[in-house]
C-alpha cells in the first residue's frame, strides 16, 4: 500500500508478525522434540498445521509470511542437509511449494470468509439501524424532530461532520449554522436532486457525500456526510437508505400539514358563508320591515287611520333598535375574534353592570317581566364593563324573546366564582342544541321564527372567554332554560378607608 500505515494498522502488523514467529517456533519445537521418532513427512505436516492455523487467523501478508517462514524453518532445521537452506531432493522442493500453495489458499479462503462475515455483520447492523430509524421517524410529529433523528442516525455511521437540512420548492431552509461551502453543496444537491461526491460521477473531488432527500421534483431536504470514500459503496448506500427514510417521513408530515391547511380553509369558508347568510338574514329582515313601514307612511299616510300610522312608526323604531343591537353584536364579535383591541379590564361591580342593563331593558315591551336578585356584598370582578353589560343584556334579551313568563336574574358568590344566572320558563333548549347554541348563527332550527338570536349567544361566549369565565346552558327542573356565567373571583383590591 502506498499510503502510510495508520497507528492501528502498524500495531496489527506487529501483532501478526509476533503470531507468525510464535506459530513457526512452536512447530519447530514440536518437530525437534519428535525428531527421529516421526518421519520427515510427518514433521512437514506439523509445519503445515502451523501454516494453516496462522493463515486462518492472519491476513494474506501474514499467511504468505508464515508459509515462507515455515518452509524456511523446515528446510533449515529438518530437511537434509540440515542447517543449510540447500534442498537435496526434488521431492522436498515439491513439498515446500505445496506448503506455500496451501498457505495462500487457506489464507485467501479465510480472508474471504472473514470479509463475508464482517459484511453480513455490517449489513445486519445497518438493517437494524434503519429499522430503528424508521420506527423513530413514525413517532416524529414535527419536521425538526425528523431532522434531529436523521442527524443522529447519520452520525452513528459517519464520523465526520454531518449536516442535514430541510428544503422546500428547491430552496434549502438555511436557518441552522452551516459552513458556506457545505451550504453551497447542499443547495446544489437539492437543485440537481442527485447524490454528489466521491464515486458518484458527480463532483468526485468533494471530501463528503451530498445526498438529496427524496426523488427529483419532490426533494424535501439534503444531507452532507463525511468521510466519503469512492470505494465505500456500502457507506454511500447506507446514507442513501437513511435519506430515503427521512424523505418519506418529511413527506408524510408535509402532506398532513397541507391536508390540515386545506380543511381549515374549507372550514373558514364554510363559517364565512354561514356568517354572510346569517348577517344578511339578520340585517335584511328588520330593514325590510323598516322600508315597508316607512314607505307605507310616505305614500299612504292620508288613507291610513291614525292608530295604524302609530303602529307603523312604532315598528320602525323597534326594528331600527333591533338592527342596531344586531350590528353592535356583529361588530363586537368580529372585534373580539380579531383580538386586536386591548381589553379595558378594571374592577367592576356586577350589581352596577346588571343595574344599568336592567334599567335599559325595563323601558322595552316585556321589560317588567325581569326580576333581579343580587346577593349583598358581592366581590368585585376584573372585566370590561361594556362587554359584560352586553353579555348580560343579550342573555336577558334572549330570555324575554323566547319566553312569555317571568325572567329572573340572580347573582351570587360560590367559592372562587361569582355566578350570574338568567332563568326563564320558556320552551327550553333541547339536549341536542345545548352544545351548539353558542356557535355563531346557530338557531336550533328556529331560523326565520325569531330574529338575530344566533349571534347574541356566540358573542356572550366570546365575552365570557376573554374574561376567563365559563358560560353554560342547562334545562331547569320544571321547564325553561338557565344560562349561568361563572366569573373568576380574584384577590380583592385594597379598599379605600371606609370613611
Amino acid at each position, binding site marked *: 500500500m502506498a499510503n502510510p500505515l495508520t497507528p492501528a494498522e502498524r500495531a496489527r502488523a506487529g501483532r501478526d508478525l509476533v503470531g507468525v514467529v510464535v506459530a513457526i517456533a512452536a512447530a519447530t519445537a514440536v518437530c525437534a522434540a519428535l525428531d527421529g521418532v516421526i518421519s520427515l513427512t510427518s514433521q512437514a505436516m506439523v509445519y503445515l498445521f502451523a501454516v494453516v492455523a496462522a493463515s486462518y487467523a492472519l491476513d494474506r501478508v501474514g499467511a504468505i509470511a508464515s508459509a515462507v517462514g515455515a518452509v524456511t524453518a523446515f528446510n533449515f532445521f529438518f530437511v537434509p542437509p540440515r542447517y543449510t537452506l540447500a534442498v537435496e531432493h526434488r521431492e522436498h522442493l515439491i513439498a515446500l511449494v505445496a506448503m506455500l500453495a496451501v498457505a495462500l489458499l487457506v489464507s485467501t479462503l479465510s480472508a474471504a470468509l472473514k470479509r463475508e462475515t464482517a459484511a453480513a455483520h455490517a449489513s445486519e447492523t445497518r438493517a437494524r439501524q434503519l429499522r430503528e430509524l424508521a420506527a423513530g421517524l413514525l413517532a416524529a410529529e414535527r419536521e425538526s424532530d425528523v431532522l434531529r433523528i436523521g442527524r443522529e442516525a447519520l452520525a452513528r455511521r459517519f464520523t465526520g461532520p454531518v449536516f442535514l437540512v430541510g428544503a422546500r420548492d428547491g430552496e434549502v431552509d438555511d436557518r441552522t449554522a452551516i459552513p458556506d461551502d457545505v451550504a453551497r453543496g447542499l443547495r446544489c444537491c437539492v437543485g440537481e436532486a442527485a447524490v454528489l461526491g466521491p464515486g458518484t460521477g458527480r463532483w468526485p473531488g468533494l471530501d463528503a457525500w451530498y445526498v438529496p432527500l427524496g426523488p427529483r421534483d419532490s426533494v424535501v431536504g439534503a444531507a452532507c456526510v463525511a468521510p466519503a470514500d469512492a470505494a465505500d459503496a456500502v457507506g454511500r448506500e447506507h446514507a442513501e437508505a437513511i435519506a430515503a427514510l427521512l424523505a418519506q417521513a418529511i413527506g408524510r408530515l408535509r402532506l398532513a400539514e397541507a391536508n390540515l391547511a386545506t380543511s381549515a380553509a374549507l372550514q373558514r369558508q364554510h363559517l364565512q358563508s354561514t356568517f354572510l347568510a346569517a348577517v344578511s338574514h339578520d340585517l335584511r329582515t328588520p330593514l325590510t320591515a323598516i322600508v315597508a313601514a316607512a314607505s307605507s307612511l310616505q305614500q299612504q299616510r292620508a288613507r291610513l287611520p291614525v292608530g295604524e300610522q302609530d303602529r307603523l312608526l312604532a315598528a320602525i*323604531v323597534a326594528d*331600527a*333598535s333591533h338592527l*342596531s343591537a344586531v350590528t*353592535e353584536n356583529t*361588530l*363586537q364579535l368580529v*372585534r373580539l375574534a380579531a383580538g386586536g383591541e386591548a381589553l*379595558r379590564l*378594571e*374592577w*367592576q*361591580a356586577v*350589581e*352596577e*353592570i*346588571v*343595574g*344599568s342593563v*336592567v*334599567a335599559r331593558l*325595563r323601558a322595552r315591551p316585556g321589560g317588567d317581566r325581569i326580576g*333581579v*336578585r*343580587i346577593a349583598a356584598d358581592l366581590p*368585585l370582578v376584573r372585566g*370590561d*364593563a*361594556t362587554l359584560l*353589560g352586553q353579555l348580560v343584556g343579550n342573555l336577558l334579551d334572549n330570555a324575554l324573546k323566547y319566553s312569555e313568563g317571568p325572567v329572573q336574574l340572580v347573582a351570587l358568590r360560590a367559592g372562587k366564582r361569582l355566578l350570574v344566572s338568567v332563568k326563564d320558563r320558556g320552551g327550553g333548549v333541547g339536549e341536542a342544541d345545548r352544545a351548539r347554541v353558542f356557535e355563531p348563527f346557530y338557531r336550533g332550527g328556529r331560523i326565520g321564527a325569531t330574529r338575530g338570536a344566533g349571534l347574541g349567544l356566540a358573542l356572550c361566549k366570546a365575552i365570557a372567554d376573554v374574561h376567563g369565565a365559563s358560560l353554560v346552558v342547562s334545562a331547569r327542573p320544571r321547564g325553561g332554560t338557565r344560562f349561568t356565567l361563572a366569573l373568576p373571583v380574584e384577590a380583592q*383590591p385594597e*379598599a*379605600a*378607608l*371606609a*370613611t
Partner: protein
Amino acid sequence: MSLAVLVVEDDREIRDVLRASLAAEGFDVLTAVSLSEAAALLDHARVDVVVLDLGLPDGDGAELVRRIRRTSSLPVVIASARHQEAEKIALLDAGADDFLTKPFAVGELLARIRVALRHRGTAVQPAITRYDAGGLVIDLDAHRVERNGEALHLTPTEFNVVACLVRADGRVVTHRQLLVDVWGAEHIDDVHYLRLYMAQLRAKLEDVPSEPRHLVTETGVGYRLATE
C-alpha cells in the same frame, strides 16, 4: 329669544333630521359638517349648546372642546358610536358636558340638551347645591341627606362623592373626574374605590339598590344623578 344649537355632524341625513327635530322644539339650529366649520361658526355666531359628532373628516373633536373650554362654559354634548368609547371619555375628561350613544332617539337628545342647558353661564350663576327628586333630597349647604323624609348619615367620603354628582346637576361625571375630585390625582386609576363607595351609597340612597333610580351608572364612563 330662542336658544341656538350648533349641530356638528358630517352625515347629511342625520344633520337634516336633527335640524328638523330641534327646530320643531323651538331651537335656532346651526349646522357644521366639519370641525373647522364649527370653529368658524363659534367665532361669529351666538351658540348656546353644541352637539358634537365624533369621527369628523377633519380630525380630533378634543381640540374643539379644549378650544371652547379655554374661553367659555358653553355646553357640549358628544354623540358617539360604541367603538369610539375611549375618545368619548377623553372628551368628557377634557370638559365636554355629556354624551349620547349612537344610534339615539330624539327624546334622548332633547333630554341631554335640556340638562346641558341648565348650566349656561354656571360661571356667574351660583353653583348647584341641591338635589331633590323621587323622595331623595341632598342639600350640600346644609350638609343634609334625606330619603323619604328621613335623615341619612353619610361618611365624609360618601358625602364628597354625592356632592360631586349633585354639582354636576344631572350631567355624567367620569370615573377620572370623581377620583381626582374626591381622592386626589394620585388615585386616578383606583376605579375600585368608586365601585365600593357607589355600592355603599346605593344601599343608603336607593329603595332598590340593584335597580337604582338616582345613582345612574353610565357603563364604562362614569355616574350621574338622574334628574328627570
